[in-house]
């Protein structure tokens, strides 16, 4: 994973106040740790959970840091290093793979100018792979955050990338 400049800055994304706010919204309940961490990750704007945020969650919820770390490394959706604002995950499971997922991957790589597994220099996009997302009847599928895109053509890929880059959800409707 290419490291982007502010990963080194020791910046706590999101702010400590926001992290505590999120933890409070779950009643500081240790059972809700996973949901809280997912929200914290989303609020980071860079799709990851900062160490400092993990430490705050650990202290507030009284869950040892060793166990918070286990959660962040066990579950595929979490990252402990900053990724792009948009993480595009292409399904790599067998049904999608054998419906030419590799070709779709190359379309994304070209449109984004990154190789699979990397983040672009502006920190906008990370391109990676994921296990089945349950869209096998429209494969190959790509997941971006909460949204899943199916029946991807080269044109759709281009329009999707543009819409994400411009942060314009409306233009993605029906894609």
């Amino acid at each position, binding site marked *: 994973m290419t490291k982007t400049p502010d990963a080194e800055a020791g910046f706590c994304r999101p702010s400590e106040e926001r992290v505590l706010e999120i933890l409070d919204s779950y009643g500081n309940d240790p059972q809700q740790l996973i949901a809280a961490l997912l929200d914290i990750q989303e609020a980071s704007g860079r799709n990851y959970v900062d*160490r400092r945020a993990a430490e705050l969650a650990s202290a507030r919820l009284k869950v*040892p*840091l*060793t*166990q*918070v*770390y*286990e959660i962040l*490394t*066990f579950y595929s959706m979490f990252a*402990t290093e900053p990724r792009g604002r948009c993480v595009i995950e292409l399904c790599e499971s067998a049904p999608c793979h054998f419906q030419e997922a590799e070709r779709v991957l190359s379309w994304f790589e070209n449109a984004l100018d990154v190789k699979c597994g990397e983040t672009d220099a502006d920190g906008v996009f990370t391109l990676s792979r994921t296990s089945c997302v349950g869209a096998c009847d429209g494969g190959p599928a790509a997941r971006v955050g909460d949204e899943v895109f199916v029946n991807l053509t080269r044109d759709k890929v281009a329009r999707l990338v543009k819409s994400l880059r411009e942060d314009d959800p409306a233009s993605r409707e029906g894609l």
Partner: protein
Amino acid sequence: MREATPNTEKTVNLTIDGIPASVPAGTSILEAARGVGVVIPTLCDREDLPKRAVCRLCVVECDGGGRLKAACATEVWEGVAVATATPELRRVRKSIVEMLLADHPRDCFVCPRNLNCELQRLAFELGAREFPSYGKELPPAPAVEAGTIARDPAKCVKCARCVAVCREGQKTGALSASFRSASFQVGPPYGDALQDGACVFCGRCASVCPVGAITASDRTDALEAALDRTDAVPSAVFADEVLSGVEASRALPPGSLTPLKLSTFLKLRGFRKVYPRALFSAAAAIFKAETLVKRLKDGSALPFISFCSESSRRFLEIHFPDLLFLVGPSGDPGRLFSLSAKKLLPDGEKILAASFSPSLSKKRDALKDEGGPLDFALSVGELTNLVARSGADLGKLAESPYDPFPLSAPSGAEKDPILLEAAGAIRLLDARGESGRILEEGGKLGERVPLEAAIGGRKTNMLLVFGLGAAHDLFTEFRGKPLPWSYLRVVNCPGGCVEGGGQDPTLVGKRLARGRNVLKTPDPRLAIPPLPHEAAAWDLFRAFKERGGVFSS
């Protein structure tokens, strides 16, 4: 902590490989099998840890079919016919151990656990043959953490015993079992160094590790170089608890290696002086008694909490910071020996002080004490290395007496009876902690050992706690309430110092299961002594103080 809880009310009858067995309800198939002489192979199972059933070596067939069951985690039931060694089971076990060996390092010759390794034993016993590599990612290189614990992740078999003992046993929680699948790994979170987290270097992880992935650090080479020096006076003390470890690895009959024989060996090997550790234990107790008596007078800061090592303070820092102000000196005799020898003996500046004990945390203490007086804090492994490399047959050695510890003439100061009373009680309790847990009435092993002492005519309660997990439970129980003791001694290891992190791992944990002192049955040298060398200890105490010595730990 799991101790066997069979229901002695109800009996279950079953067969194991056709052999009839009759055991209390609640017994595991593994235990029932052992009882009739059928030993089912295991790797992740340990009697002193919660069962995890992850190695899958102990799987057995019940009633001729169906899913295989893990014998360690399955309780017997009435009439079951267990098969432990069908052709299929033998193939399955062989496959499993071969899978473990597939990308395991092949450097047994130089591994600290060579000839003492559970994986080696299993490979041999299960007839492992082919174990090609399946292309593992390069694991992190071996490293020694804080000079105390050596970790070699390439050797890890991912049994996660270490995480279990640290989290559920010691309740210290320094290790994570992180990631998934082949990336599954154990270690501090975020790849931190052990010393930056909750680790107190108790070494339980090293004791329970079945292979050479976690071991006590080894300074035998440096020690031998020191012994070769002609300009120094290498001097040693050793705790009697190391004797069993040496016996085990040198195949000597238990109880045959007496302290004075070991003393002979050390002299032969190059130590110029071997002193009786008991003298320094006693003197250390007097120093601690000073702290205790002062606190009793003030009525403040009670109880005096004394851990077996300074590194254990971290335990309170992390888990019970509001109790930190109660911590006082641990009173390591090895450290007192080094301080007093160098200060009081004529050739003090030439002395290289070495202390052998079954402790791992004391290694850490000595190293943290940068430029400190104890040159070598050594554990059982290094002692057995020394013996092995010298080829000595310890059984044939004659005994030779300890060297006297000559002090300048005693100051003539009167003995302080109150101080000595307190010291006697402290020493009694500390010695119990060193020699280990014993059976109480009703067959339970005592985790908390109370002692009622009289100091200056007043009765006072003291407590010894075996293991950080038990200490965690105690402090949790008394959260927000006063702790009703004047002196509270906590030894890191649940079996006592004799089963410390620096002891031979194969000797650790056995006594808990069988409820008796397997290490030295019956071993008079571990009978709790009264404050020995009282006069000499007092003189040492006075002399050290008069020369401006400070023994705060």
